[in-house]
């Protein structure tokens, strides 16, 4: 990959993703804080309030024209930034790999090519720029955890080594599961349209995750995590699920040695950030 510059005073933005924005705002908040932490002058990234969704649900439903319109809207809204950080492999893959092909026969073809170069899947971004954290800071999670590879991180963004490097560098104990390259069965509308198969795939995945011996699962895609956590919870299994942003940001929050004044850090108006880490669905 060509090195992208995120120096001086770049304009960074966070693409919240519709799932994280709606069902797990902690992930968006954590992403903003981590990006801020990574920027040279502690600049808060922009979180455009007009953002909605990357358009993947339309794209995968066969509504190509709907997806094209949405892609154009997203490019219009985010095009001016230098780096766009996405806390989801799947949405990052959509923005990065699918937009150029969707828009190739439209007036946005060139814009899509430029846009593609600015997209960072979160773990990819952090692996490169999250250098200020020292491994000595207290860990949010002390016990071993296992990593869930999403298909998009694995096969579209090729960023599976980033998350592992990040977690290890921060001192987390990582235990690998089996069948890492097998899909968990989420697949967006597939999880509803073919719910029985999707659920069976979740069970297979949970079995593999449990084989790691760890009871905490971290991932970079909220879709997979909601699906797996929802299934594990229904089966009353002792597994907890977290997005990697939530785990890493705790290290920033836990350390008050940094200079950043509390007032300038990205904080939600709700009290969630003060609470201890709550697993997805708990």
């Amino acid at each position, binding site marked *: 990959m060509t090195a992208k510059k995120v120096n001086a005073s770049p304009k960074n933005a966070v693409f*919240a993703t519709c799932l994280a*924005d*709606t*069902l797990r*705002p902690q*992930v*968006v*908040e954590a992403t*903003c804080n981590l990006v801020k932490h990574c920027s040279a002058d502690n600049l808060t990234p*922009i*979180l*455009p*309030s*007009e*953002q*909605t969704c990357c358009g993947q*649900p*339309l794209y*995968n*439903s*066969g*509504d190509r024209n*709907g997806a094209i*319109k*949405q892609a154009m*809207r997203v490019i219009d809204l985010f095009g001016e930034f230098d780096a766009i950080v996405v806390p989801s492999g799947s949405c990052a893959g959509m923005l990065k790999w699918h937009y150029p092909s969707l828009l190739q026969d439209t007036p946005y073809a060139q814009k899509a090519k430029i846009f593609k170069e600015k997209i960072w899947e979160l773990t990819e971004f952090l692996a490169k720029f999250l250098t200020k954290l020292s491994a000595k800071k207290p860990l949010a999670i002390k016990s071993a955890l296992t990593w869930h590879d999403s*298909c998009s991180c694995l096969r579209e963004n090729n960023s599976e080594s980033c998350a592992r490097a990040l977690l290890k560098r921060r001192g987390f104990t990582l235990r690998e599961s089996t069948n890492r390259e*097998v*899909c968990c*069965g*989420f*697949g*967006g509308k*597939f*999880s*509803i*349209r*073919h*719910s*029985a*198969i999707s*659920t069976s*795939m*979740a069970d*297979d995945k949970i079995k593999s995750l449990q084989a790691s011996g760890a009871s905490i699962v971290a991932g970079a895609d909220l879709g997979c995590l*909601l699906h797996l*956590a*929802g*299934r594990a*919870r*229904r089966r009353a299994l002792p597994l907890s699920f977290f997005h990697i942003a939530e785990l890493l940001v705790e290290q920033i929050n836990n350390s008050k040695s940094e200079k950043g004044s509390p007032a300038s850090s*990205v*904080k*939600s*108006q*709700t009290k*969630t950030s003060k609470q201890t880490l*709550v697993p*997805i*669905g708990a």
Partner: protein
Amino acid sequence: MPLLSLSFFSSSQGFRQKSVAALANPTLRAALDKAGTGFLNARKKAFDEIENSSSIKARAQQARTRAIDNMAELLLLFERNAQAKGIHVHWAETAEQACAIIIDLCRGKKRIIKGKSMVSEEINLNEALLKNGAEVTETDLGEYIIQLANETPSHIIAPAVHKTRAQIDALFRYHHENIEEAKVADNNPKAQRTSVLLVEEARQKIRDKFLQAEVGITGANMLIATRGAGLLLTNEGNGDLSAIMPQRHIMLAGIEKIIADDGDAAAVLRVLGRSASGQSLGNYMSLYGAQPLQDNGKDLHKDLHKDLHFVLLDNGRSKMHSSAWREMLRCIRCGACLNHCPVYTSVGGHAYGWVYSGPMGKVLTPLLAETSKQTSAQELPHASSFCGRCVEVCPVGIPLTSLMRKLRERDFEKPLQPRGLKTRLACAVMRLLFAHPRLYRFVIACFLRVLKLLARGRGHISYLPTITAWTDTRDLPINRSARSAIASIRTSYPR
């Protein structure tokens, strides 16, 4: 219309119902589990062993692309070269035509043996032959098993992969009455026999058929244009016995099996066995039609008295050639995409309703079946999480998920049918909300409040009326704060 070939599409039971039934069948799950890992490990090892596996795949893809790009010319070249050697070439546009040609070639001959051929399954050849009073014996072990069980193949490479050894044992006991008791394990008729004993028993049964057969029908892995010859790869040697023992040999193949020359054929061979079963090559590889049968009208093989007929089937392929799905014609039927598909390995091949299953079936079946009124095939491209593993393992680089998505797009553009209503409605709502971010925010805010109410203090809900397909098997984690990130984070876009 190739309705005959689609007769085992059951319109009453679509993929969804069949997949649910398959998931609830523990014997099937056990059989699939057992077979699954074997294939994967073997393939991985076979490609890990060679240094330049990616360039080998690229070369194979190039060979197949060349074949498909020049399909018409190469087929004509093939025909000319074959005919010059006294080999007959028959063209069949539809399944019915192919069946009729073969029935004609079998006229006056009763005993027919077959090597494995998925195209013969595609055109439902056995049924057509049986109707005409012929006696047909499948000689590939897997095909033989499913013929006894009166089933259809559930895998293009391993047709009986859905059967456990215990089931095969029971099937043989039922059908093989005169097998010597000594062959039944250790004088204990109840004990389950080993695979070796089962194979030996089938071999005995099939051997007689080889000796008596009047016509042999096999498939072809490739049709080499510059030679006018068909290439056949098998592991059991049954294909060669089927070809050699009877006087007449019929090679049945789809027209996309064409390949330019020996060099391109070799390029495909390098990936075919490795992708299919982890073998560098199949156990037996033969060329049929490589040697001339006649010279200037003189019969060169009088003593053998052989004749060879190629039956080349279109059945929707030339239509695919000029469509957005042309790349699918590159497929070399290796089965790797099936073995690596988490949907296939969960439900098995029968749920797909036709001979082609797994990712390649999700593309091929709706296209080849499109002239029929069958609607069950249309669900197939939707039954994918788009995990992309099939694309990763396909040795000839077919973008299977993109092709499936294109089929979804074709479905979406069709005039509104009741089946597509839900999707259309969902997309219309999404389009509206995405175009109006403030409306979107409002709807999300309401939705989150409703979820919070339904959760009654918990972090998840167990029943949501509109998406019971989710909550029937999974809890839905909710957002306890009931505020979206955008709504709650102060640093919002300065516009």
